[in-house]
């Protein structure tokens, strides 16, 4: 329904403006905040790219792990409760796999240049699941 530019095109052009024109014209704290703002736009761009498929996969994993249905928020709360009360832990089948996959999916959006994330991608083969590209470092800061 909405005309061009698409939301992704808009985000990309705003980020290019911040990086190409605003940041070089500022100094100190303002330049730093402009960089943070550009990085934040990068997060939104990557989330638009990955959120739908990753949230579906995470919900599937959670449903299987907890053996119940619900929204992502409900199941995440339930998982927290079970870990806190000791009903599920590091030895429980599927828990570590779910947490690794979820954390890698979040970092692929939040901070794909974070060194521990790059290393975890190598250390946990297969954990990043489908749909997440490790080759999209964006403009994230560490």
């Amino acid at each position: 329904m909405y005309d061009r530019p698409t939301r992704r095109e808009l985000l990309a052009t705003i980020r290019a403006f911040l990086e190409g024109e605003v940041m070089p014209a500022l100094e100190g704290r303002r330049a730093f905040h402009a960089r943070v703002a550009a990085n934040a736009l990068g997060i939104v761009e990557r989330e638009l790219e990955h959120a739908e498929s990753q949230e579906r996969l995470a919900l599937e994993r959670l449903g299987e792990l907890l053996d119940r249905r619900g929204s992502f928020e409900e199941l995440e709360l339930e998982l927290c409760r079970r870990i806190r009360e000791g009903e599920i832990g590091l030895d429980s089948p599927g828990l570590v796999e779910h947490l690794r996959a979820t954390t890698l999916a979040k970092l692929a959006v939040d901070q794909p240049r974070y060194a521990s994330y790059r290393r975890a991608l190598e250390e946990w083969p297969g954990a990043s699941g489908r749909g997440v590209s490790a080759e999209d470092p964006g403009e994230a800061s560490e």
Partner: protein
Amino acid sequence: MADPAALEAGLGRALEACLAGFRGLRDLRRLSGGASAETWAFEAECDEGPLPLVLRGRLGGTEAGGASLPIEVEAALVALAQQSGVPAPRVHCVLDASHGIGVGYVMQRMPGETLARRILREERFAAARPRMAAQCGAILARLHRVPCEDLAGLPSLGAAEQIAHNRRVYDELAQPHPVFELAFRFLEECRPDAVEAALVHGDFRNGNLLVEESGVTGVLDWELAHRGDPMEDLGWLCVPPWRFGEIDRAVGGFGEREDLYRAYEAAGGRSVEPERVRFWEVFGALKWGVICVGMYGIWKSGLDDSVERAAIGRRASEAEVDLLRLLAP
């Protein structure tokens, strides 16, 4: 923020009373302002030449921060640590209400670089980096022996209190993080026995150390100091976010654990139990994660509307991957 003209006048009056040969001050400029204190730099003109100084304090109405020491306690502690041989700024003057500009203290402005990325990457620190882990060990051994029993206002914070505090903060933020829950379980199950309390710096890490070509020459940012388990400082120094990308060098991104531990023991520190340090490293990674979520909480509450404050919430996932690599390698 304090009014610069009023600050300059009040500061001048205070320095006349406590700085020998003081003639005047110039170039008063704001360095930073946290929630709990402001920091200003200036030069004092003295009979023997200019003296680079720093003013830190609750000036112009800034409130005491939640976890931070009261500023007068911080001033007394920095002075005590410096007199006990820790490379910390020399405290020249403590300001009280009678000076009319709030409470604070004036200290020596020590030379050196604090920006972690420069310390880890610039050529001029190439010779310093391999020495720094051992230097940190020796400094910490001395710091942990500073006699702080008589320092009023220094809180006692052992592992149990700190886990409970972070649990409370995390619960109040009401944002579920299953990885953080796992870390809390680990900390509660693996909490080491309490030890005889020592002075703990509380934020001894790359970023709060002054570094010159010769290595570590100063320790800054004392506001989170407390009495507790000295291994907390060793663990915090090794927490992954303070490696600034150099994740294979566990100590601040510049050095090896073995060098830190060996130098710590050789300089008279207690015998290092690696498992105890690991406990504090997990604690530190979790604490950093809770801080990230809390930064978003501060933004959400409207107390700070900066984009930086909001965006740091998205760094909680960094703490999650670090915790998973520690707990389920």
